[in-house]
């Protein structure tokens, strides 16, 4: 890509992403003050955070414009690592109820 191919108007181009991310932040605060259970609130807030992260990755970090190979090499791996960390929850709930390990 040659320098002349850069518009110089990138802020205008991505202004909608900026406002979408701001809106998501305000929406998160609004939802946090509604009377949801902790689990429902957590699920909703995480869903909104993932939407924001997707927008930031695709448009601010230009991952959408990179090769598909780069995306496939990076993102599934990190998602896999984060999902594997979910193994901790049973022990966390065990501690909450102070149940000893079964003998």
């Amino acid at each position, binding site marked *: *890509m040659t*320098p*002349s191919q*850069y*518009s*110089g108007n*990138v*802020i205008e181009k*991505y*202004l909608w992403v*900026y406002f979408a*991310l*701001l809106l*998501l*932040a*305000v929406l*998160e*605060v609004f939802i*946090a*003050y509604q009377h949801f259970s*902790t689990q429902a*609130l*957590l699920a909703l*807030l*995480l869903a*909104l*955070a993932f939407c*924001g*992260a997707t927008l*930031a*990755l695709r448009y*601010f*970090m230009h991952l959408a414009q*990179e*090769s598909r*190979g*780069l995306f496939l*090499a*990076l993102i599934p*791996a*990190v998602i896999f*690592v*984060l999902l594997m*960390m*979910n193994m*901790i*929850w049973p*022990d*966390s*709930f065990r*501690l*909450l109820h102070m149940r000893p390990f079964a003998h």
Partner: protein
Amino acid sequence: MSESEIAESGHGPAMEASPFAIPSRKLATWLFLISDAATFGSMLYGYGYLRTASNDWPTPFKFNPSVVNVLTMTAVLLTSSLTMLGAMDSAKAGDKAKAGRFLWSTILLGVIFAGLHIREWFGLIDEGVRLLQNPWGSPLFGATFFSITGLHLLHVIGGVVAIAVIARGYARGSLTAGHVETVGLYWHFVDLVWMFIVPLVYLLNLSR
């Protein structure tokens, strides 16, 4: 033919082409960011583990000043991402003056974010929150809160310093638009991590 044989015979490139058709500097930045995402992920999981396991987790964040402060910080950080986009685009277009203005605007916004963050910390410290104690409940609240937000603040401060070094080097001609792009990637990642810290650390612990 092995790479060393190619280099010795003088035929063909001695180096393989960069994977994924991006400069190696950019690929290295992406790999760093992925490992950093795992670091923040593990810290947030650790925080979730402790929060779930505690039946007296404090909920100290009031709408004013904490939530208002956090929303302001989010707006400042998002605006800095926008100015960083301007810097990356201007640098690629070869407009050094414009890229410099955008980079210094990003630095200013980063400093404002850090200032607001420190103000938030001092507000909590004034209320008695310390690393291993607080007036309300589980003493681990302070440890997790200061560790996670502290690591993020460290990233912001590190980013501000890196952008300042690159802005100066780019203006002098010793650094290229590629350097601006890689520091831009890092800066957007700092913004991305904040999108998870706000709901998990602040909004799940609102004072009602």
